[in-house]
């Protein structure tokens, strides 16, 4: 292959290094209205009255929108396929508020300053209601957070259960009872922020035909169009959504966060409107990773083979349920797709509370799955006295294995059969064993104040949502032999435009600079479900490959007509017949435009897959524990991935290098404390600490040789997989260093220290 598997300059790279105005907010618009949201200061209340008269009297305030301005229409803010698997429990503005940060009203004004002043002048009478912060309490409580008859898709509103999953294969209870060894543990994973550096920003205006244009930092332009149309009751044909360059999303922008608000302002006033979240709003009023409490039980036989896995999930959804069912389904499915156990069971509830709203975040439930699973596997290996790598190698699903849970548990509905046509997890573990110096570091004597330890964890993910995610592509040829590639796939900073261009270039035998990519504009590019679920390379890439092949067949057919031959082949960028006649791409297209057999050479295709081949990863973390303070420092991370054929090595490495510090943040540095009123306290980047350049450990990234027969040129997904394993690898390394098991993330130095002290006391 000439283009696939090689580095190429990003197709958007030049504009980005030059700081060109390519992001949503990089434009000036005349007559712009600035929109600000009044967020609830209380965690749970009924709005008795809103008086906006004083605010509206302020010069420069155009309108204050309250619940009185909208007909009640329940929807979900989750940017998912239709019908959405998330409960429809949200109103654009409600008479109830359910968390600190919930929408109360919004203001449109001539300037940001005036909009901010107006917020201060809105008087709201709240009747405060009892609050529920704990998921277990919420299930047992008499208080109903979502009692409206208009909401739909809530699993059990009476018990505040937004979503529920359960599945069993075999007979778990009997298997556990007759297992030679049984291990059990309860773990919790925390609230985490996506923390893209570009905040959510949406701008809307009416175009020359009075159609609504929304330019927004989104991962899901088609879902934005559909949901805005539905919520504001206007035809889809009246809306155009443009996705410019996106300053990071990580799932946070798989949400209709503010698009319907600017759209409402523009439709009511006829004027352009802009809303941008401040960093503080990003932190307390956007979306977070769903925290989960997980109890897991593993049964093993005398040969150390798994007999059963039993998993219980309690997911804290926060105030509303976007992604509640699907994130939990992914937790369940991924936890039960790694190891071959004849008996498996999962039971999970996603529960409403008066805390920030869970959303989509890279890994989408899988990091929550692998923390308990990989912690307990490590514990099991330790108690059984065998090497944790060996225990994993013994029990992982292997090539050609059928993974039964995939069939019964899809994303929010039944799934599809899953056979592993590529699986190099063993190679990942073996390569990581060498690169991390496993044998020497693991067995080194641990003593002194600073103690080093090495831990391992493995994980899988998916490549798109089987049977649901659909991408499409359109390619047209130009007379200089270049091609326009138009895709609905949404590059949110990952480089997917470049990867897709590489796939098209490979098919068409041209260099990447001959492919002009335009992505994601609902007027100009064909449909794509969007950039989530690790779907772009695998699903949208599949569509690009088919479209390019269709275009290539048309080039050949045109070439044959122009050469007046029956047989010919494409060699490089020339159509050649057996009798030696030939015509170049350029000549074919030029003649086809202007002189002979006139037509536009083009190709279009859609792609959907019932397979969702898992990429795999083994992560080795080397840590240093300060036994005096309990502070853990990560020294080195070795991350070895099977992502099938790599399309662009540097970009793929970049995905791993970026995912690892996000996972380390979840494990060690990103804290989301709340006060007793449900107010999130770390409202800036000083206190909500994401990894900086000086926090970074050494990162070693490797990809093992692998080819996925169902993927474009053998590719699987790479974006999410590397975020799943680092957190348990770190806590397993802590155990290796000091013998303490951490079951709750993020690691609290105080908790670690008290466990250490207790351990030493017991030793004496």
């Amino acid at each position, binding site marked *: 292959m000439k283009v696939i598997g090689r580095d190429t300059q990003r197709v958007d790279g030049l504009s980005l290094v030059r700081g060109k105005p390519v992001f949503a907010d990089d434009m000036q618009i005349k007559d712009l209205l600035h929109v600000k949201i009044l967020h609830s200061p209380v965690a749970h209340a009924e709005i008795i009255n809103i008086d906006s008269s004083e605010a509206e009297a302020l010069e420069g305030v155009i309108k204050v929108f309250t619940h009185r301005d909208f007909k009640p229409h329940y929807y979900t803010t989750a940017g998912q396929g239709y019908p959405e698997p998330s409960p429809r429990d949200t109103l654009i503005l409600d008479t109830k508020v359910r968390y600190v940060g919930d929408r109360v009203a919004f203001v449109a004004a001539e300037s940001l300053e005036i909009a901010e002043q107006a917020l201060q002048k809105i008087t709201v009478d709240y009747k405060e209601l009892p609050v529920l912060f704990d998921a277990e309490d919420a299930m047992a409580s008499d208080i109903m957070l979502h009692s409206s008859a208009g909401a739909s898709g809530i699993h059990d509103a009476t018990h505040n259960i937004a979503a529920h999953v359960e599945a069993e294969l075999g007979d778990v209870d009997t298997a556990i009872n007759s297992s030679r060894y049984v291990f059990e543990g309860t773990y919790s994973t925390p609230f985490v922020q996506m923390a893209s550096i570009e905040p959510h920003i949406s701008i809307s205006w009416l175009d020359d035909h009075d159609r609504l244009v929304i330019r927004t930092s989104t991962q899901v332009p088609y879902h934005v169009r559909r949901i805005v149309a539905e919520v504001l009751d206007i035809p889809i044909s009246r809306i155009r959504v443009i996705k410019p360059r996106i*300053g990071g999303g990580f799932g946070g922008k798989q949400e209709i966060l503010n698009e319907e608000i600017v759209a409402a302002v523009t439709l009511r006033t006829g004027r352009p409107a802009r809303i941008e979240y401040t960093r503080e709003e990003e932190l307390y009023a956007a979306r977070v990773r769903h925290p989960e409490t997980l109890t897991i039980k593993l049964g093993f036989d005398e040969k150390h083979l798994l007999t059963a896995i039993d998993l219980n999930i309690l997911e804290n959804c926060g105030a509303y349920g976007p992604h509640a069912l699907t994130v939990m389904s992914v937790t369940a499915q991924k936890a039960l797709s790694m190891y071959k156990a004849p008996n498996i069971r999962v039971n999970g509830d996603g529960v409403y509370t008066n805390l920030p709203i869970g959303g989509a975040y890279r890994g989408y439930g899988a990091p929550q799955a692998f923390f308990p699973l990989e912690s307990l596997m490590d514990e099991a290996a330790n108690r059984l006295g065998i090497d944790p790598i060996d225990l994993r190698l013994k029990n992982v699903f292997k090539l050609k294995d059928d993974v039964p849970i995939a069939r019964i548990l899809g994303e929010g509905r039944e799934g599809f059969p899953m056979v592993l046509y590529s699986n190099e997890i063993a190679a990942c573990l073996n390569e990581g064993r060498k690169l991390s110096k496993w044998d020497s570091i693991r067995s080194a004597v641990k003593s002194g104040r600073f103690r080093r330890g090495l831990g391992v964890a493995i994980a899988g993910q998916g490549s798109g949502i089987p049977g649901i995610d659909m991408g499409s592509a359109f390619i047209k040829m130009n007379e200089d032999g270049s091609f326009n590639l138009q895709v609905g796939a949404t590059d949110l900073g990952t480089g997917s435009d470049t990867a897709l261009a590489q796939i098209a270039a490979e098919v068409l035998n041209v260099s990447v600079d001959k492919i002009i990519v335009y992505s994601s504009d609902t007027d100009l590019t064909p449909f794509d479900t969007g950039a989530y679920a690790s779907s772009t390379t695998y699903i949208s890439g599949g569509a690009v490959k088919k479209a390019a092949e269709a275009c290539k067949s048309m080039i050949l057919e045109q070439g044959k007509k122009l050469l007046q031959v029956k047989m010919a082949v494409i060699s490089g960028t020339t159509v050649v017949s057996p009798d030696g006649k030939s015509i170049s791409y350029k000549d074919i297209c030029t003649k086809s435009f202007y002189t002979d057999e006139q037509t536009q050479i083009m190709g279009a295709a859609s792609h959907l897959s019932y397979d969702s081949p898992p990429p795999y990863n083994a992560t080795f973390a080397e840590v240093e524990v300060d036994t005096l303070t309990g502070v853990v420092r990560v020294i080195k991370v070795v991350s070895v991935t099977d992502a099938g054929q790599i399309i662009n090595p540097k970009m793929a490495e970049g995905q791993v290098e970026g995912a690892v510090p996000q996972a380390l943040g979840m494990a060690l540095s990103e804290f989301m404390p709340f006060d007793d009123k449900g107010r999130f306290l770390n409202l800036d980047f000083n206190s909500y600490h994401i990894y900086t350049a000086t926090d970074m450990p050494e990162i070693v990234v490797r990809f093992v040789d692998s080819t996925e027969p169902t993927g474009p040129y053998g590719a699987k997904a790479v974006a999410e997989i590397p975020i799943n394993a680092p957190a348990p690898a770190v806590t397993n390394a802590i155990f290796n260093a000091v013998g303490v098991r951490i079951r709750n993330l993020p690691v609290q130095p105080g908790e670690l220290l008290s466990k250490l002290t207790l351990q030493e006391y017991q030793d004496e």
Partner: protein
Amino acid sequence: MIIEFELNGRLINTKIDPGKTLLEYLRSEELYSVKHGCDHGECGACSVLINDKAMNACLILMPMVEGKRVETIESFSDHKNLHDLQKLFLAEGAVQCGFCTPGMLAALEALKRENIEVSEENIRDSLNGNLCRCTGYVKPVEAALKSLSQMKNDGESS
């Protein structure tokens, strides 16, 4: 009030609102490489050079730039030529979403102008005020290391 300062090589003499930040001013002048990420001097996406030092434009009130030399990434290249750091950021794959890239480039250019020993530690220190959620800083640091050591070598050989 009226202030005078140099912006990307041009002398600016303009009436300003003393309460406006340099970030607000630069973006209103359509210098969009200067990004708005946090408003609190924490993310570094608005880093610009002021008298050769990297500063967060969101923390600078306009009167503070009186008599100063302000440079944004727009001045680093023209339509034909790229700055070495820009070239290496491209070649090394150091750009992902690109939102924090201009701020990183400003920080690294400031380091270059300090004329001190180039080391990975210095580079990491100088990038410490630039948050990036995409790259883990791995490739930006590699690109900077290559670019700055190249410049140093070029400087020594000439």
